[in-house]
């Protein structure tokens, strides 16, 4: 009986298992395999070590560590901006009428229907020294701003591109939240700020976590945005990987990808562990 159902379940998930094996497990295996081998496919830690040790001839600083830290900084800034803008937006969306919610949802989604590259090109024309933004600024007599090619431009691009991935998971968690909980908090003496701090934010942590993950990971590994909006002036870790790959340096490219992946996995596991503790009463203070 149960063996039978198990076999049937097995048959049903088989296509997905094969798909996952082919497109997730096998590529990951190859990334790891290339990371730990040299050009003649002999085992080596050399590629991994190179990431941590290679120094610049001019400044003496560690090249790849610097690149990684810069990527991390820009990604964290972008994620933080997405969260600061996205959380209130998600909150107001859940408070709006059903019709307004639908409209806002569509407005957030529309940019996602356009190709990512095209959106980035659009930002180039906006941010250029002779672009739309500077046209408006000088039209208003405010003088020009040099944005393109700065870190700010890269952050703007990242925030714009990944913003929906922050708003949607938070919105979906908040929309499911029982409104009676908010009434209960008010009934028990909370003013608006206290309701937010003691009930709404703690209960929306799973959404925040999803949003942060979905923004942080693509923005830490992006290379296109930094090339187009940063004028290629600062190398991010994605650019470094792409550069090595294009230069046919597959083993070092794989090593960097591998390191990035491990760091992200550890970071996500840590965040999940820290926020998961104390949730639903377990392990909370006595």
């Amino acid at each position: 009986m149960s063996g039978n159902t198990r076999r049937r379940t097995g048959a049903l998930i088989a296509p997905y298992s094969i798909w996952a094996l082919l497109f997730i497990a096998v590529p990951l295996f190859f990334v790891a395999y290339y990371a730990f081998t040299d050009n003649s496919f002999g085992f080596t830690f050399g590629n991994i070590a190179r990431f941590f040790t290679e120094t610049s001839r001019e400044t003496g600083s560690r090249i790849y560590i610097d690149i990684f830290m810069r990527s991390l900084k820009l990604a964290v800034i972008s994620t933080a901006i997405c969260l600061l803008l996205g959380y209130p937006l998600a909150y107001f969306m859940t408070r709006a009428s059903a019709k307004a919610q639908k409209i806002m949802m569509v407005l957030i989604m529309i940019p996602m229907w356009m190709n990512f590259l095209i959106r980035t090109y659009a930002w180039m024309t906006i941010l250029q020294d002779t672009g739309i933004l500077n046209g408006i600024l000088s039209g208003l007599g405010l003088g020009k701003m040099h944005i393109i090619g700065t870190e700010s431009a890269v952050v703007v691009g990242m925030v714009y591109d990944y913003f929906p991935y922050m708003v949607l998971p938070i919105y979906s968690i908040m929309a499911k939240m029982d409104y009676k909980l908010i009434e209960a908090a008010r009934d028990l003496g909370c003013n608006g700020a206290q309701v937010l701090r003691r009930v709404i934010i703690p209960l929306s942590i799973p959404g925040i976590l999803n949003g942060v993950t979905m923004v942080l990971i693509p923005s830490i590994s992006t290379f296109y945005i930094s090339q187009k909006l940063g004028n290629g002036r600062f190398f991010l870790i994605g650019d470094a990987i792409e550069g090595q790959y294009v230069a046919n340096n597959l083993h070092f490219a794989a090593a960097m990808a591998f390191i990035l992946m491990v760091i992200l996995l550890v970071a996500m596991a840590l965040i999940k562990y820290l926020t998961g503790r104390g949730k639903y009463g377990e392990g909370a203070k006595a």
Partner: protein
Amino acid sequence: MSKELIRLKDVSMQFEGETVLDNINLYFNDKEFLTLLGPSGCGKTTTLRIVGGFLVPTSGDVFFDGVRINDVPPHKRQVNTVFQKYALFPHLNVYDNIAFGLNIKKVPKDEIKTRVHEMLEIINLRGFEHRSVTSLSGGQQQRVAIARALVNNPKVLLLDEPLGALDMRLRKDMQQELKRIQREMEITFIYVTHDQEEALAMSDTVVVMDGGRIQQIGTPEDIYNEPKNAFVADFIGESNIVDGIMREDGVVEIFNRKFRCLDKGFAPNEAVDVVIRPDDVDIVPEKDGQLKGTVTQVTFKGVQYDIIVDFYGFKWLIQTTDFCPEGSKIGIKIDPDGFHVMKKSHYSGMFGDYSSYSEEYDEISENESEEEE
């Protein structure tokens, strides 16, 4: 019953042009157990939410201890609510749920601890402090919800169908429990339910509502024995309601036959509604009966039989311990105190005929859950 605590004066409520409450005038006494009773959509939950501060009435005033509180938000009222589906905070354990209100008020930690433990004692959940609220049974969650409200020492506790999600047996236990807590803590309970049995069993005062209006206010006995109109008579317990004519004080005519009754004060020959409760009817041999009819349906209910009897085309429900087989002809006698005469209202003719009687109707109306607004 002591002094008046809350008063609703000419309170009306409209949602998108639809009148949900129509000119409600009602006062709540201190330390009273008052129940707002009525079917879905009668306005009882809306009334409760106005007292709780979650809704501001479209017109009319709310007074608390003589002070107008229309615009006072919920967190500034000396009122706490037990919500329909408990609304416990899933991210907090039992202790932190109960301590929530005290933490907000910045009560010293030691005092919070003492008071929470006192509450756990009262609700019989000692040792459950660190349990997650999502791991509790419905009855336990219910009790935590009550403790979370009561620990704040409110003057008034509002309860919105708090037992609706519990099974029958647990509900009976919790009724006793709530009544005990209300007596021990000496506070006002305002209780909303659509379950008339629950209302009669627990309340000092019952307010029967329908269509956004108060139909009757009284003690459970008043409401049951002296219903004001056909709606109340039908909603509270089972009632046979027939058209009658009040011939003179103490004499009512139904089915063209005169009966002695105790009611008086009607105009001579005034058309009235006459209520006869199913258990106020004595079954006698056909030849001795004041009225004669045919049994058309028999249902065994445990304590008694519910039988449907056809009198001249009008079907009555009679509850009797004597078995009368289907198809048998019986006579009935009704004592003068078995009649209750009511003035005609717009509810006349809508209730009290058991022609379409089916046990299933009871089941449906009992399980129906209330979702207003």
